[in-house]
């Protein structure tokens, strides 16, 4: 089987599972298929047709949606003849008085700054390669940054938070969803799609193969 290690294999033909250290020969995988670690099931190689172009396209779409999501009205609340529109920006500023100011910064980072940083980083890494050029300078460190940010980019968690908040105020007042809400929903769907096209180990192999050394 392709996974067996032979003494004649050179180091570049082997791969150690980043999660459990099991040693494998780098398997030849058809486009669209995937190879997983024999011990822990972590996906090791998963080439996808036109993956880079798609990641770049989806990241750009996500960036545009993010701009719309931040500045357009997000939700509108009305009761007793009083109305209030609020944007994502207002949600960020909710904690801005006194002691809670740091939390405002944290929320801004989690739902806007880190997702944007990640989209920009992915475009920087993949756009030149999608066009068939050599990877940009520092592409490796930028990709590493994008991967480290990943758990902290919480746009999808925010959307569920919005749903919960809507139910909480539904009894209190009339709530209208603004255009920014739909932009944010689109953003979440795009993010999930994009992450499906990315296999970390495959990306590193491609970066390595295309870099001039």
């Amino acid at each position, binding site marked *: *089987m392709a*996974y067996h*290690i032979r003494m004649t294999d050179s*180091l570049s033909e082997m*791969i*150690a*599972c*980043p*999660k*459990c*250290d099991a*040693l494998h020969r780098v*398997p030849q*995988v*058809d486009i669209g*298929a*995937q*190879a*997983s670690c*024999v*011990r*822990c*099931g972590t996906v090791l190689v998963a080439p996808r047709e036109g993956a880079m172009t798609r990641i770049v396209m989806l990241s750009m779409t996500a960036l545009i949606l993010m701009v719309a999501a931040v500045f357009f009205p997000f*939700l509108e*609340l009305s009761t*007793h003849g*009083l109305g*209030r529109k*609020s944007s994502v920006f*207002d*949600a*960020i500023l*909710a*904690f801005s008085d006194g*002691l*809670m100011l*740091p*939390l405002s910064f*944290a*929320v801004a980072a989690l739902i806007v700054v880190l997702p944007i940083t990640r989209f920009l980083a992915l475009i920087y890494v993949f756009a030149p390669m999608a066009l068939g050029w050599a990877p940009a300078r520092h592409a*490796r460190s930028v990709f*590493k940054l994008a*991967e480290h940010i990943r*758990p*902290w980019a*919480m746009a999808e*968690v925010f959307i*569920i*938070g919005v749903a*919960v*908040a809507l139910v*909480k*105020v539904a*009894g*209190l*007042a009339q*709530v209208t969803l603004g255009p920014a809400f739909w932009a944010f929903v689109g953003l979440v769907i795009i993010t999930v799609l994009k992450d499906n096209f990315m296999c970390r*180990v495959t990306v*590193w192999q491609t970066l*390595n193969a295309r870099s001039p050394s």
Partner: protein
Amino acid sequence: MSGNGMANVERAQPVLTARAAGLVGCAECGHVYPLGTEACTVCGTRLVSRDMTSLQRVWAWLFAGMIVYIPANVYPMLRTTTFGKTSESTIVGGVFELMEHGSYGIAFIVFFASVVIPVSKFIAIAYLGWRVQRGKPGTTSHFHLYEIVEFIGRWSMIDVFVVAILSALVQLNFVASIHPGIAAVSFALSVAFTMISANSFDPRLIWDAPEGKPV
């Protein structure tokens, strides 16, 4: 070779790890080097066969997360003013309010995200850390536990976002206004600390048998 099916073929055989083969694998990209190599030439990550300092960081962040989780539950998360009357509600209090309004589904989501997930995470991380400390070799199910903890942690942030949205939205002067309580800060910190704790865990430690035994 290709396809999903082959992953199961050799599960019965003992697995050769990079360390047992006298090699070190990169935790970031999987490239393999002779043991003792300093850094990965592909991605620049510092190479360690097993990150032995990882457990210290796991415990430190875990305890920090548990400590700030206490004020998060004691102090109010929300301060609601309706027609001049102010009421404060804690995390668990908010869940009961939702149930009184008949929103059982949402009450369940909030309870799950703010109580069940954080507490199970504390227990799961402590359990995995304790096993590694004792040198007990783990199985696939221990690894899955780790994967679940790593995946699910960020979803606890829901409650912080709910407070942020409510405070931004419900600002109708006299009729109704909602302000965040100080518990929002400690809850956010607790989630962040436990996420860092889980991220610090070197999952390769989960599988290891004590020194001397075949891996």
